[in-house]
């Protein structure tokens, strides 16, 4: 809606999906947590199912704009809009899972890693609608972290990290580290993930991971921050997240 007000979008036709109750609801479906496209940010924020099975989302939700936005904005809307500075795309990458879309040719599932392809661009084809996502619930050994820097509460992120992993003693297994506010799209820091996978988290490992992240990402400057500042800040956030994972 804001893009209409700012004349960044000028659709000839706007279709309101809000009457489609099938796109609502948060539920355990088999061994997955299914979140409907029309679930609002506020509903995610207060959902006991999310708190239990995907607490990363509960931690990230308060960073999304402000309450009045969260009451109306939706999970599917944010994912389909694919703003690189938004919280949900990075969180979905950190959680992994499937994006379920439906179009004239029927329903298909798109892996989260394949969904965000460019600036405001997803793998959705014309005529397709994002219906829901299914993610694997957090296990008992799950670790997660979310950290975002913004100039004021509710602003778009200058830089942020959404991360999940499994704990294995002093190490993190299969870490998924996704960045927001850095590129044209949310993306995982694969080399840094590989570096961390299975290695005991000590000061040396953390320092190497931070250096790896700074080398791996290619931040674009924005109105207020240069590429080098974003690169630096991304490392700061990773340092903080990994330090908290040590505890």
């Amino acid at each position, binding site marked *: 809606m804001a893009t209409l007000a700012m004349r960044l979008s000028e659709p000839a036709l706007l279709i309101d999906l809000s009457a489609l109750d099938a796109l609502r609801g948060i539920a355990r479906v088999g061994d997955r947590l299914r979140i409907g496209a029309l679930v609002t940010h506020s509903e995610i924020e207060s959902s006991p199912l999310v708190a239990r099975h995907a607490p990363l989302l509960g931690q990230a939700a308060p960073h999304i704009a402000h309450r*009045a*936005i969260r009451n109306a904005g939706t999970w599917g809307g944010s994912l389909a809009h694919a703003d690189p500075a938004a919280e949900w795309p990075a969180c979905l990458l950190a959680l992994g899972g499937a994006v379920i879309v439906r179009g004239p040719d029927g329903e298909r599932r798109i892996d989260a890693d394949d969904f965000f392809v460019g600036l405001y661009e997803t793998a959705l084809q014309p005529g397709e609608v994002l219906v829901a996502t299914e993610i694997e619930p957090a296990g008992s050994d799950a670790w997660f972290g979310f950290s975002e820097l913004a100039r004021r509460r509710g602003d778009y992120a200058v830089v942020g990290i959404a991360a999940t992993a499994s704990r294995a003693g002093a190490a993190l297994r299969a870490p998924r580290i996704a960045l927001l506010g850095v590129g044209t799209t949310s993306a995982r820091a694969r080399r840094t993930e590989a570096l961390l996978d299975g290695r005991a988290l000590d000061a040396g490992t953390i320092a190497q991971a931070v250096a790896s992240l700074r080398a791996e990402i290619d931040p674009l400057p924005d109105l207020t921050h240069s590429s080098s500042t974003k690169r630096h800040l991304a490392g700061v956030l990773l340092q903080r997240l990994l330090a908290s994972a040590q505890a």
Partner: protein
Amino acid sequence: MADLYPIRLTVNGESHQCHVSPRTTLAEFLREVLGLKGTHLGCEHGVCGACTVELNGRTVRGCLTLAVQADGAQVQTIEGLSRRGVIQDLQDAFVQHNALQCGFCTSGMLVTAKELVEQRPDASRAEVREWISGNYCRCTGYHAIVDAIVEVLAQRKARAVLPMEEI
């Protein structure tokens, strides 16, 4: 010219049937069609909070909601909430604490504060500040507004406790 769409909605308890252009926002509709000027237009892209109203019991940005999306909905504006008396304590506290000067942000602040005191009755001062961070004020410097809301939280809590103490 674009077609007009029929909508039926309840605003401040009154039913309305109107035809609106699809591009008309809820805030514009309330102000220009219904003459309810208490809802204000500031930034018109959702960040300043001056247009905040209640839609089906939840606060939303009137500037980011199309009037056609309010078809079948219940809307409460500052006029309705004020007339019903449900924010009397907030309004009194705002006056006592000098929490308004020009008044432009005030309607949005009150609608937002109402949701806070109802949804987060145990909110701390820090949580109040966070909650109203989506409502910009250019006059007061915010502290008086926070003071007013904190006082109302305390008052409501005390009132909630009283009936039991009387037993």
